[in-house]
């Protein structure tokens, strides 16, 4: 069966102005139990963490362990 791209609103938001992935930080990516966060390049060539997969247990290690307070965990829309 061919595939389609279905959009989904993700619960975890990273404030790229605060994220220091540029300096090599990967803390949130490292701790996430579901392994759904990744580092991407922003339009101006900097780096930032972001939620790559909508597979979240809304558990909070990413937010709790981020050294700069850049991560906000919201609840997935389906259950909020």
């Amino acid at each position, binding site marked *: 069966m061919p595939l389609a791209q279905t959009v989904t609103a993700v619960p975890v938001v990273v404030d790229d102005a605060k994220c220091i992935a540029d300096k090599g930080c990967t803390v949130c990516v490292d701790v*996430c*139990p579901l392994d759904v966060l990744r580092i991407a390049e922003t339009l101006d060539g900097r780096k930032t963490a972001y939620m*790559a997969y909508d*597979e979240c247990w809304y558990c909070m*290690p990413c937010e709790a362990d981020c050294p700069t307070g850049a991560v906000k965990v919201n609840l*997935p829309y389906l259950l909020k």
Partner: protein
Amino acid sequence: MDEIRDGMNRIDCDILVIGGGTAGPMAALKAKARNPGANVVLLEKANVKRSGAISMGMDGLNNAVIPGHATPEQYVKEITIANDGIVDQAPVYRYAQNCYDIIQELDRFGIRFQKDKNGEYDVKKVHHIGTYVLPMPNGETVKKALYRQLRKARINISNRYMATRLLTGEGRIAGAICVNTRSAEFLVIRAKAVILCLGAAGRLGLPASGYLYGTYENATNSGDGYALAYHAGAGLANLECYQINPLIKDYNGPACAYVAGPFGAYTANAKGERFIECDYWSGQMMQEFYDELVSGNGPVYLKLNHLAPETIGEIEDILHKVERPTRGTFQAGRGTDYRQKMIEMHISEIGFCSGHSASGVFVDEDARTTVTGLYAAGDMASVPHNYMLGAFTNGAVAGEHAGDWIRDVDHAAIDEGAIEAERRRVLAPTLREDGIPPNQIEYKTRRMVNDYLQPPKVTSKMELAQERFAEIREDLSSGMLVRNSHELLRSLEASSILDCADMAAAASLFRTESRWGLYHNRVEFEGRDNENWFCHTLLTRGRDGMPTLRKQPVAPYVVEIDDTEKDAYYRQRVGSNALKTVAAE
């Protein structure tokens, strides 16, 4: 991102612990302490720093047997009664005797437990009969404390590796095959002993929200431990005794009566009336909860709004900070202020978990499975109502036993053919041009679990489930599509979930009686049939590759239970009396 790389590494160790959540770290520490020369590897699908049910911490110990408050014998009795008598008491007794030492050890690790003015442990009553709940004022430190100990003991930690199959040889355990979840590279580990600590089967039923990861259990726990044990030929006990929990509706986490109960909160119906005398989770309690939910008195709530505002503040402080901190976000979003509104509750999806229920990979009092050299502890092992302290304590039992056992054995020979076959199975979905993605395979499996396996259980529905699962199995093995290493992880989880679904159906069909309240409520077989079914069910992998079942006697009790006490857990409904239960039998 997440590209699939070709690779296969091999390592040897003495003791391989799989799963670095709760039981796993303790098993590794104790194995090393018992046998300092041993090479102990702790393998984890996520990252040991923040993995497992206790990822963010815990609100308290739910089953602490503390001298002066309870005896091991009283605890064994309570757990036996709560599980309808189908309990091998020896492992429960071992736990009850050892857990106080583990509490003190955790204390030394820096995890504090609540004490009263006199410096005594401040244990609370939540269970139907005895007193076993001990709050943890700094419960958020659990994972950090464990991690410090692991580093100190120089345990070799391998994060982001998922174990996919165990290796056996010479009739005993030989190691495990693992896949890196970020690169798809293989790691074959030879080990003299393997300790399984992979947690619950938390992604078996689909939460009512429809969100695949909105589960009660940490969603990393997809039942891989049950599948590993099954394919290695180990026996699994009483899988028809599902886990079903009373939870905050939609949020799907504990509300939590264990925390709020001792402050005066209770489970109520829509009229605000109490209908059960005890908020401790058991199949019998869940049956009452379910009955109320579907009656005209539903839905069911946790009621706090009668408490003093300061008390509620104290409860909020615990509930919104430690174990599931997003509880506060959720309640705020719904406009639920505990001072005004009751908390709407619902029943969870089904799962396997001895942490709260009683099923799992069969183990004896030394945490040994039926495969030589293979141990299991925590939510996936068959010791009932284990909770966190059970995971720690039985993890320790497994680690210590394995530490001794490996002294006299060498690595078992491994079958290269099995490794090659597993490589082909794992990578097959990556070789296709198009097909069905793992999330759709998983969604469909879990929806069928809800449609057909959720109690009350009906024979013809469960048989239909088996037909659907067979079709999905065909899709999974010949049509699943994986495009990167992250999807590969999900595809392997989908396979474990399907194995667990088949096991749940087979075990539930086998036991032709009702038992454990809602957990195994079979509509056509009302009441318990002690004459034919006062036994465990033991599931193994049959020659056709599908589950096969047999009865296994309950081991003679260590602590006798008086006839008048046996049905105590059936007398939970407010105003109930003993006669009702007797009549049902």
